[in-house]
């Protein structure tokens, strides 16, 4: 028996209504009843491997880094029952995007992930960082210099294992120097000298010197050494604001002067001022404030570019200091298996086992250009840390490294606004420092999380 259809039409109006209602009902039923099952299935489908979120592998663009990560995971999975799986999250989504933040908010955070000191307190105060100390032996603990590990510790316990130390320095274009009649003897040692040299290097198509201009954690990170060089701090030992100081005003003014003189740009290219290829190698600037990773960036994407590095100039009354950032492996305390995740982190980067030490050395010499966070890895790297620009970092730049401070987001924002208002907004540095200091005091008075370093 067939349905009676209205002549000339494929389907009668009654049938259409009936089928429409069925379709809508099915959709509604699926919506009301199907999602929990789908959700459970999805959770099961994730399986037992621990998820390791990072922005290097397996989808990363630098093959040596992809290889380092995949080899590490293979080595672990070959020798352990609890497997680990790499999950690549593009940098823009990971660091500045909502992916990591929303995953924890929805209780779907990764088991193992990377964080920088700038984000440490947010995650620690949120209670999602697993104590890694029980999995690290005393010899290995002693292998990490205090200055490197301190900003990943709370109450003597280690919550993150650094994979690198990334001190900031100045890179310069040899070609730009030659065009301006300068050479390596003209490398500036003071802030005043830097501005003078930058003016000489400035042309209608090029800036003399480049500092970060985009607001964000990275800009704060790159500004800290200029604050410290004059003896400035943003917090006193008794937990109050120390931001309203001559050193703060001096540092804010230095960046403002660089922009106002026309020697430094108000905008940066590419991925920002951490991108040496898009700014320095492309000829947008002659000197750029970049970290040690610039060496591997330029080696990978601007092989023929001739450049040199020198340590950050200091103010007339100051002493040399730079800032060292770097990412760390952390384990999710609310993950599927926090202990196994912590064990993995310790096995990968914090064991006296030869493989662990060599892994750290390889990351800093072969996969990327960094200073190692462990004394043993520095030795294992051998001559790699004595040659070329890495050698300059190891010998001249790295000894003045001070660890990147960990600050809560509220403190970051206050400092960021002060930098932005003076550097690009033309605000008076003294008034800005005073106002920011008052805001800092108001926040610090009510702050109750882990100590800020």
């Amino acid at each position, binding site marked *: 028996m067939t349905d009676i259809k209205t002549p000339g039409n494929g389907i009668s*109006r009654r049938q259409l209504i009936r089928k429409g209602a069925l379709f*809508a009902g099915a959709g509604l039923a699926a919506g009301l009843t199907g999602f929990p099952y789908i959700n459970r299935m999805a959770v099961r489908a994730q399986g037992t491997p621990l998820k390791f979120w990072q922005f290097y592998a397996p989808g990363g663009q630098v093959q040596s880094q992809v290889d380092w990560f995949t080899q590490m995971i293979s080595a672990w999975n070959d020798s352990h029952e609890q497997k680990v799986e790499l999950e690549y999250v593009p940098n823009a989504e990971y660091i500045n995007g909502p992916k990591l*933040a929303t995953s924890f908010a929805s209780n779907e955070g990764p088991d193992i992930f990377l964080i920088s000191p700038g984000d440490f307190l947010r995650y620690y105060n949120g209670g999602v960082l697993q104590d890694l100390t029980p999995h690290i032996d005393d010899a290995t603990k002693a292998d990490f210099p205090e200055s490197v590990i301190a900003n990943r510790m709370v109450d003597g316990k280690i919550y993150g294992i650094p994979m690198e130390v990334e001190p900031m320095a100045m890179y310069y274009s040899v070609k730009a120097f030659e065009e301006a009649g300068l050479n390596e003897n003209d490398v500036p040692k003071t802030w005043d000298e830097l501005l003078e040299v930058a003016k000489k290097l400035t042309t209608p198509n090029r800036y003399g010197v480049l500092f970060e201009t985009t607001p964000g954690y990275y800009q704060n990170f790159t500004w800290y050494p200029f604050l410290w060089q004059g003896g400035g701090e943003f917090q006193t030992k008794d937990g109050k604001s120390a931001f309203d100081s001559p050193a703060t005003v001096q540092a804010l003014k230095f960046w403002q002067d660089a922009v106002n003189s026309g020697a430094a740009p108000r905008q940066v290219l590419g991925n920002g001022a951490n991108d040496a290829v898009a700014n320095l190698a492309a000829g947008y600037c002659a000197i750029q404030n970049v970290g040690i990773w610039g060496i591997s960036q330029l080696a990978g994407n601007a092989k023929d570019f001739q450049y040199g590095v020198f340590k950050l100039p200091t103010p007339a009354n100051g002493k040399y200091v730079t800032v060292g950032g770097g990412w760390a492996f952390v384990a999710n305390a609310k993950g599927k298996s926090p202990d196994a995740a912590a064990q993995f982190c310790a096995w990968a980067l914090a064991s006296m086992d030869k493989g662990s030490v060599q892994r750290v050395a390889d990351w800093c010499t072969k996969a990327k250009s960094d200073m190692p966070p462990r004394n043993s890895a520095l030795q294992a790297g051998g001559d790699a840390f004595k040659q070329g620009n890495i050698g300059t970092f190891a010998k001249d730049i790295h000894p003045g490294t001070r660890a990147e401070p960990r600050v809560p*987001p509220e403190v970051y924002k206050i400092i960021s606004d002060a930098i932005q208002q003076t550097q690009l907004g033309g605000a008076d540095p003294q008034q800005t420092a005073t106002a920011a200091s008052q805001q800092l005091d108001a926040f610090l008075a009510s702050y109750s999380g882990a100590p800020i370093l």
Partner: protein
Amino acid sequence: MRRHQNKPDQSQPIRPKGLSAKHREWVAGYLFVLPDAIGLLIFLGLPMALSLVLAVFEVNGFGGYRFVGFANFLRMGKDPLFWQAARVTALYAVLLVPLLYVCGLGLALLVQKTNRFNAVMRAMFFAPHMVSLVVVAVVWQFMVVDKIGVINKLTPLLGISGVSFLGDPQFALVTVVFVSLWFLMGFYMLIFLGGLQDIPKEYYEAAKIDGATAYHCFWHITLPLLKPTSFFVLMVSMVAAVAGAQAFDIIYVMTKGGPANSTSVLIVYIYQQAFSFGAFGYAAAMSSVLVVVLMLVTAIFFVMTKGGRFNYD
């Protein structure tokens, strides 16, 4: 007697048992709308309701919830950055909405006649709207970059030099308004084209016979008869300026709200509070206020203009 009572009334149209034709159409209409309505309810209504709930909690983004009542709303009053963002949002909307109206209508009038040249022009004006917002932002970012951007190379010809379009707080907001305008005006041109085609040609012919100029035709025929379209354009562009995807994407990619918070519109500030600072409760409170303000402004505008309907009194 009984048989006589059951005899169909020949004066009434024959209809099947059950619902009347009017009701069947009513049911059909709602059934067709139902899938969309469910979608809106789940993906728009539910998040809005949850956002209101979230707004009365302090949420740290790691599963920690603490009831704080109206504290998040009170915090807004004391937060200078919230007010700064509100001011920037208002300025962005005040600059963008009239420009979109004028440019959208202007382009539609320019290309309303149907011929091959205008078809190409329409496609050209609409083309930016087809491009991903992130791509639009990145391309314009390169075009206005200090010293070496194409625009910066051309501006000295107009006697303007040394302008940092995105690095100077004086120019950054105007620059993002311009880029938003470039991206959106083709879309509003299409809306206006639809409105223009609805105006009967006889009105223009009669006016011309009476000696009306193009100027008179525009002011006395085109503009008054575009009232419903104008209402739609102004409403949609206002909502787009305050909470649209372009208001976030273009600004976030081009400036991250800088320099010195000069382009930090509310939607960018809300994003920062939620995803950079983990203040989900505070972000939800700001979102709720934004939604309420938008609804209020829309309602006021709706009442004032009678929803864009013609006044036949």
